[in-house]
């Protein structure tokens, strides 16, 4: 056992224990650690944005030669967003948001459709090359059947009778399998976080590992 002598390691270890004390019950130590975390993360983000962006990308190019006067327009637009803090000037935020939404929609809609819909539909086609091996064939058929039956499950404009009802029931099975996989991965993620903290406490703080 080789306990750390670094004050930072001790602070981190104690804060970790304070946060985990919530597992027993709500207490002032947990609250304190939570508030420290909130304050730190917001302060950290503000400082990073101020020094890495506002000073470098806005202040210096505008006020030091060669002056980039073209920056005035986006800066003005951005500043208008602060109108939200005043009842009198709330209307100002309409203009930057109009630019933002129009630009974002124009850029996003085609690529979203292409990346998330068309490519996925294309990948579900049963082309001959997908049947070159037995596992590949099984996978392709499963994906095809899963896609069709899941889509049928979410089609609510007709009665679920006969073949349509059966297909919807098959769709539920696929959806449940997806939920199960998601839950399994979520468990893994949560345990991983615990492992990370325990590795820190055991290895870096207590020096046992």
């Amino acid at each position, binding site marked *: 056992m080789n306990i750390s002598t670094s004050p930072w390691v001790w602070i981190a270890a104690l804060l970790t224990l304070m946060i985990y004390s919530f597992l027993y019950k709500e207490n002032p130590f947990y609250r304190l650690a939570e508030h420290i975390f909130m304050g730190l993360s917001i302060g950290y983000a503000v400082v990073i*944005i101020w020094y890495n962006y506002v000073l*470098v990308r806005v202040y210096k190019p505008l006020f030091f030669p060669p002056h980039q006067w073209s920056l005035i327009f986006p800066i003005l637009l951005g500043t208008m967003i602060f109108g939200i803090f005043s009842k009198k000037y709330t209307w100002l935020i309409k203009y930057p948001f109009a630019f933002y939404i129009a630009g974002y929609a124009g850029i996003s809609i085609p*690529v979203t459709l292409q*990346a998330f819909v068309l490519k*996925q539909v294309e990948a579900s086609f049963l082309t001959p090359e997908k049947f070159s091996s037995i596992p590949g064939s099984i996978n392709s058929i499963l994906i095809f059947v899963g896609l069709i039956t899941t889509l049928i499950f979410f089609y609510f404009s007709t009665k679920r009778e006969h073949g349509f009802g059966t297909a919807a029931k098959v769709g539920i099975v696929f959806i449940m399998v997806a939920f199960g996989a998601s839950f399994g*991965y979520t468990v893994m993620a949560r345990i991983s976080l*615990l492992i990370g903290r325990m590795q820190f406490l055991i290895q870096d703080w207590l020096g046992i*590992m």
Partner: protein
Amino acid sequence: MGFWQRLLKLDRRWIFLGIGLVVIFPLIYPLKLPVKPTKPSMDLFNYIDTLGPESDAVFLVNGSAPSTLPELMPMLQAILRHCLTKGVPVIFFGGLYPQYIGVAKMAIDEIIKEFPDKKSGKDYVFLGYIPGVSAVILSIGIDIETTFGADYYGIPIDSLPMMREIKNYSDISIVIDISGTSSPEYWLMYGQERYGVNFGVGCTAVSAPAYYAFLQSGQMVGLLGGLKGAAEYEELMARNGYPTGKRPATVGMDSQSFGHLLIVLLVILGNIGYFVTRRAEKTRGIEQRRKR
């Protein structure tokens, strides 16, 4: 109260304690259970393994904040180590959100200690945070120098030897986003789809199921999912004779396996308990109705 009823009313703090114990013991007394690499991890590893000093750069994106550190840091370090060992030029981007940059600095500082001959600007470039998310991804496709201006240390990008031949995605062999958020979707839309750059992902386990669809469609080269994905990459590094460091993900996998076993056991017991008590309640209800 019977066993099953008591089990269903068990104070959840006992479960927390149980999980804590099964996680801690394997960390102190490791069992070294085998880690078997899966195809998505092997695909990403093999892709990077085919690259060399003359290849186009790897653009590695850090999407890890302190909250996702245990899962994502081992991935970042393993991929950085792999690239630097092979001499592949690496552009390490600190992240799309301000919280990431500290983690990125930690990762690069730790790895670079293992490669004292590698120089910033010559063998790798570390880029800092700039706001914009999708705008940043799109802008890299036009010009990296205009997008970032300078590297993390404030050195102008046009003065970095490594960046002389690297202008945009056309000079990048693969973008790998190590992410704890939905940022891979942005890279997929604005990087892969818009500019056709190869794309790989390392993500937290929570996000992994959502990205398998993009593997199957060929939109992603490979995928590392959670701690398991990181451990698989470490295993592939070891099998191929590359340096692996302390293998933090592999060390954690014993605890992961025992944690999962306990959860599976609890789910099974909980379900049995539910059905047994429901049956008992039904039987009791019938008897009471008969008596009336």
